[in-house]
């Protein structure tokens, strides 16, 4: 072999070696990756406020992480802790499904603790690749936001079988709330009706052989008084009075329930029916002006009225369309003076109890 041949061979060998070296330099190597679709939701963004936290992240193609850390300082120069924010050493954690990201609840029996600026989560069943997970740090003081408003960049890092990470941004603001106020003004409506011209006549002439009664009027109440309402009545004559006969068919004892008998003079006022309508209240007649046992007055039943306002009915709460039917009953004897002007004026008033 000539020297030229030897030299040629050496040249070829040198070139080959150089090519091999280049190939080594170009060989690709595996590398860590970044979590995606990741967010940290502070459930209070206001400065210097304790709050719970929601964490969502999506793993990469690297599976197997069995825990993670959340460093609220991240790589910030103005840090969470440096701005008087904090991470509670005691943490409670719960995996949550959904989280507006079709996330899987963090699996296993996760537990969490805090130290410095870092929350550490352990006890996680090995995470799957390319899967979105969610969990809440449920303590109302999981973290406390910094005392100054601004942007911070926590870092979420897997631990265990995978070590992928990501940096997110959270914002701390001066106020994250709206206080809404309103007033519902008091209202009370009380109306007598159901009888023409507010006149309630006896349906027939009074007779000693029977107890007469009027047709009745209605009293309708609407109110938003939370504690209900009251109705009172008073009588101008303390009975049915005739000027012609100079005679008053007297009311029975006011405030005492009574039932008239035919042939024995007497005059009573009673609540013969109650309609509840709507509302929260329950309306009832006073015993005297009902049936004496919490119900409405029966025929010829009620109590007398005088010039003193007497409680005739009440309700326990709001009312929309609560209605009383009020009637008068009268009985005469054989010697009750005749007269065609027996009359009485009854005043009925009400008030809401706010």
């Amino acid at each position, binding site marked *: 072999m000539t020297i030229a041949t030897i*030299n*040629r061979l*050496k040249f070829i060998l*040198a070139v080959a*070696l*150089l090519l091999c*070296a*280049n190939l*080594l*330099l170009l060989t690709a*190597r*595996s*590398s*860590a*990756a*970044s*979590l*995606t*679709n*990741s*967010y*940290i*939701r*502070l*459930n*209070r963004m206001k400065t210097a406020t304790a709050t719970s936290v*929601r964490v*969502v992240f999506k793993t990469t193609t690297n599976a197997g992480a069995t825990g993670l850390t959340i460093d609220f300082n991240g*790589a910030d120069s103005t840090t969470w802790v440096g701005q008087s924010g904090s991470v509670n050493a005691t943490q409670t954690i719960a995996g949550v499904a959904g989280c507006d*990201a079709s996330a899987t609840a963090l699996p296993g029996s996760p537990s969490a603790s805090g130290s410095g600026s870092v929350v550490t989560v352990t006890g996680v069943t090995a995470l799957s690749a390319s899967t979105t997970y969610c969990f809440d740090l449920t303590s109302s003081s999981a973290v406390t936001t910094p005392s100054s408003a601004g*942007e911070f*960049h926590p870092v979420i890092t897997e631990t265990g079988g995978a070590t*992928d990470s*990501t*940096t*997110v*941004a*959270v*914002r701390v*603001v001066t*106020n994250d*709330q*709206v*206080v*809404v*106020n*309103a*007033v*519902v*003004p008091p*209202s009370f409506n009380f109306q007598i009706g159901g009888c023409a011209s507010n006149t309630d006549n006896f349906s027939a002439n009074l007779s000693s052989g029977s107890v007469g009664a009027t047709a009745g009027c209605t009293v309708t109440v609407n109110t*938003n*008084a*939370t504690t209900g309402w009251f109705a009172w009545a008073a009588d101008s004559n303390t009975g049915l009075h005739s000027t012609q006969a100079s005679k008053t068919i007297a009311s029975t004892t006011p405030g005492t329930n009574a039932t008239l008998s035919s042939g024995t003079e007497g005059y009573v006022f009673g609540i013969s029916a109650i309609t509840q309508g709507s*509302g*929260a209240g329950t309306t009832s007649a006073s015993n005297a002006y009902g049936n004496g046992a919490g119900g409405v007055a029966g025929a010829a039943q009620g109590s007398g009225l005088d010039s003193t306002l007497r409680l005739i009915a009440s309700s326990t709460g*709001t*009312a*929309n369309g609560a209605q009383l039917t009020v009637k008068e009953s009268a009985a005469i004897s054989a010697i009750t003076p005749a007269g065609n002007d027996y009359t009485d004026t009854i005043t009925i008033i009400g008030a809401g109890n*706010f």
Partner: protein
Amino acid sequence: MIGFARFMISGVVLSLASFSASNSYQLNNYGINSGGSNSTASSTFSANVSSGEANGANTGATTYTAKSGSIEAQQANVPGAPTLDNGGGGYINKLNFIINTSSNPSDTTYVVEVATDSGFSSPQYVQTDGTLGSTQVFQTYSQWGSGTGTFAIGLNAATTYWFKVAAMQGKFTATAFGPSANATTGNEPTLSFSLSPNTLSFGNLNAGSVTSGPSNLSFTLDTNAAFGATIYVAGSNTGIHSTAAGNTIAVSPPSGDLSSLSEGFGLQGISASSPLSVQSPYNGASNIVGAIYTTFQPIFSSSSSVSSGTATAGLKAKASATTPAAQDYTVTLTFVAAASY
């Protein structure tokens, strides 16, 4: 013929340089020269001296650097360009680097130089903790993380960094720095959010009438989050509540039409700048309002980044004839924003 021979001699030197070390041996000095050579050493240095060597000019390409002369045979191989990784843009303040050993022995140590320009005008060196400093720190391939590499940390976001590596073995002079590689850190995630006003007073709610809040709620949202952002709302109660009356004015979830309901209270998204959109059940029209929940519900959302986003929402209320009267109807609504990166 002579010129060709000279070239061939240089080629021989290069090839022998590649053969100068293996796991079991290393030729420390095999120079070809016309003079003699000798060595001297102490506990801290070794030197080989020879005369008649060719001038130690550099030759190289993008993937290797070589120097002629026997002294270079006793140095470690110049490391190739390191492998850099920015986590697909997810590394904001760090970059991962993996040393290219260029077949140096395992006891070879390496120093990593970093700069923000390709000329390395203001070089720094990776320290043992990954930070950058002014001191050259030599560590073995293993200490630099082997095939997993090490993170250089404390970097600036959205900045391109150049890395290059020099090697040293034993007491011999360190190599020159090898070719560089560069990578750019990711953009720092951003999120801004505001809400106004912070109080709203309806005044009197008259029975049978739908009353709108005295002003709308205004929101701003800005984020570079690739996967979007959401504004959430939660109430201290499910509606506007009176402690004195023990009553809450609300609509049954998810929403209600105050035009037909006897009473109610709710929230309605009025407008949102693209790509934000109003989310159900707050996307009703006229007097259809979404219920208030005590857990967070999305009211505005985007699936992509938002630039100077704005949104508005309104509150509506209606009382009935039997809505208990009270002066202290109130509710506190908390609005928060979260962005997905």
